[in-house]
């Protein structure tokens, strides 16, 4: 397992290199010190970009051998050349609250030990997420007969996560016990993103409170151990949301570009990723239009459209070409008759999701803290708080709509998935809380 871990870390180093290129090309960092402060964001952008490109290549018939994985990452890494040409901004002064990093790191280390001994056991992971990754790796690509077969659960789910796992298998061999460690890397990168984006902008104690709660929250460990797609999609959505907030406050184009990259990754990870991407860019467009007129809503609308096109369209074309039915049905979503007949589901789904969001045994005080900070800064920082509130509510409403229009039994759906799908909304709140606190 230790040798396999080396292979997995090598694959992730390639994602990081790819992400350094993507963030460098976008103009997010200049010079080595600034790159060092952006490693978490670079890693997540690398994962998102590699995953979206890999999905496109798989759909096009590629096998993504080890050499091809290396080549894709190296080509993406070339973007770093732009970043190395400039000079870094000076680092913001560190705060007296940085000691919290020590207990946080200790808890992360304990989580890593726990995940090291964790087998692959969660239903979705052993029935379809990992089998898809295994098939991509073992069959040398997206073999339509296997990926459209009757016994494969959720064949319509996009394949970013299986593509990332399959790339890992190219270096580590087929080792399923490490997939939760892969999820932990996503989480650690996300914590770094929160810290990086809030650095110099937010109140340090708020940053560390959000990070500490994320690490200690029992639901986070539960989901890391499941090795399913909920942590990856949540991390990508929340990071995209935080980059969107950075664009709103600083007006820097790189932040909007990276928000689109991360949202594309989220949309290519899970169906909820689409809802979350819409939430981020609709929120940005709403605030831009309110602040500077309708025309200023165009950049976020275009960025959101590009993210959805890159993350979803190739996969949807492949599904249509192979007659794979979508579980989420646009017909049901827009059918007044269906929605009216099932209107009773709305209050139940709302209440159930709210209970899961606010459950302190799962998330400690992450969501109440977000709500409190939002209320405090509502008048002082209307743009950012309106964005945070609208994206949060749109994402929440999107989840309710998904339960409203499900063709499966509502109670079954809620009981098996609600505790997981709220993760994205919770992580979004956690990522935005420190940024909101800048005017508190």
């Amino acid at each position, binding site marked *: 397992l230790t040798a396999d871990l080396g292979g997995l870390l090598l694959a992730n180093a390639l994602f990081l290199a790819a992400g350094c290129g993507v963030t460098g090309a976008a103009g997010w960092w200049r010079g080595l010190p600034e790159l060092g402060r952006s490693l978490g964001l670079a890693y997540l952008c690398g994962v998102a970009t590699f995953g979206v490109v890999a999905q496109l290549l798989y759909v096009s018939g590629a096998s993504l051998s080890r050499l091809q994985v290396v080549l894709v990452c190296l080509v993406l890494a070339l973007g770093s050349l732009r970043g190395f040409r400039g000079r870094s901004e000076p680092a913001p002064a560190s705060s007296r609250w940085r000691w919290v990093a020590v207990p946080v790191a200790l808890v992360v280390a304990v989580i890593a030990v*726990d995940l090291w001994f964790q087998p692959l056991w969660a239903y979705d992971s052993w029935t379809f997420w990992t089998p898809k990754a295994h098939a991509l790796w073992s069959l040398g690509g997206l073999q339509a007969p296997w990926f459209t077969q009757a016994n494969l659960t959720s064949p319509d789910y996009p394949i970013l996560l299986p593509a990332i796992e399959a790339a890992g298998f190219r270096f580590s061999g087929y080792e399923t016990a490490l997939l939760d460690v892969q999820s932990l890397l996503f989480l650690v990168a996300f914590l770094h993103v929160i810290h990086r984006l809030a650095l110099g902008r937010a109140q340090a104690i708020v940053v560390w409170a959000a990070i500490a709660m994320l690490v200690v929250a029992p639901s986070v460990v539960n989901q890391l151990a499941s090795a399913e797609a909920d942590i990856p999609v949540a991390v990508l959505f929340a990071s995209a949301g935080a980059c969107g907030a950075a664009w709103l406050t600083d007006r820097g184009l790189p932040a909007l570009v990276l928000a689109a990259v991360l949202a594309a990754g989220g949309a290519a990870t899970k169906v909820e990723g689409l809802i979350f991407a819409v939430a981020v860019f609709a929120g940005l467009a709403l605030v831009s239009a309110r602040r500077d007129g309708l025309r200023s809503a165009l950049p976020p609308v275009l960025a959101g459209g590009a993210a959805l096109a890159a993350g979803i369209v190739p996969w949807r074309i492949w599904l249509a070409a192979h007659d794979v039915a979508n579980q989420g049905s646009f017909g049901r979503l827009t059918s007044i008759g269906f929605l009216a007949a099932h209107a009773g589901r709305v209050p139940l789904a709302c209440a159930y999701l709210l209970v899961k969001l606010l459950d302190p045994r799962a998330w400690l005080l992450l969501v109440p803290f977000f709500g409190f900070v939002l209320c405090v800064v509502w008048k002082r920082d209307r743009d950012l708080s309106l964005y945070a509130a609208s994206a949060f509510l749109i994402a929440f409403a999107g989840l309710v709509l998904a339960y409203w229009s499900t063709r499966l039994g509502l109670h079954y759906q809620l009981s098996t998935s609600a505790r997981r799908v709220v993760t994205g909304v919770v992580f979004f709140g956690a990522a935005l809380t420190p940024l909101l606190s800048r005017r508190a």
Partner: protein
Amino acid sequence: VLGVPASPGALGWALILVGLLAAVGALVVLRGRLRSATPVVAAAGICLVFTAGALPYVAWRFAEDLRVTYRLHGYDAAAAGPVQAYLPGYLADGARQYVPRGATFATAVGPHIPWSQARAAFPALVMQTLFPRVSVADPHRADYVVTWGIRPDQVASVSHVWLARPKAGAYDAVYVGKVQH
């Protein structure tokens, strides 16, 4: 997490209570500082204190989990997924020798298999056992049928039936049938 009990139990609840009381105690001690801070800083401080208060319970969860997962090796670790769905990981292993590589198969579960999770997960288990063979929905259109708790000739017209795994304890027999086209 695999080894954490579904309910905290007496010890878990006691640790939650101890953590809560300790957090409340710490807040009482820190009340002066919290009062002088801005509302957001005070709220962040309260969150940090309650997070620290959750640590005994969280530590107990890790300990409970590791107590179980540390001992999982070989089959126990490899089959942890199916076992969570009340399926032995080896249930369909015997079918591999009868279904040729390149053939298609369909699965069926008998009405007397009582565990709904196991019934739902059986097709996924067979799919992985017979990898890279491909499944089809309609048994009549498959080359082979793999059945659990029901004879293949009850789901399709078959020319030959093999016993892939005999009935063992509560687990019904698994059969493979060659479908007659």
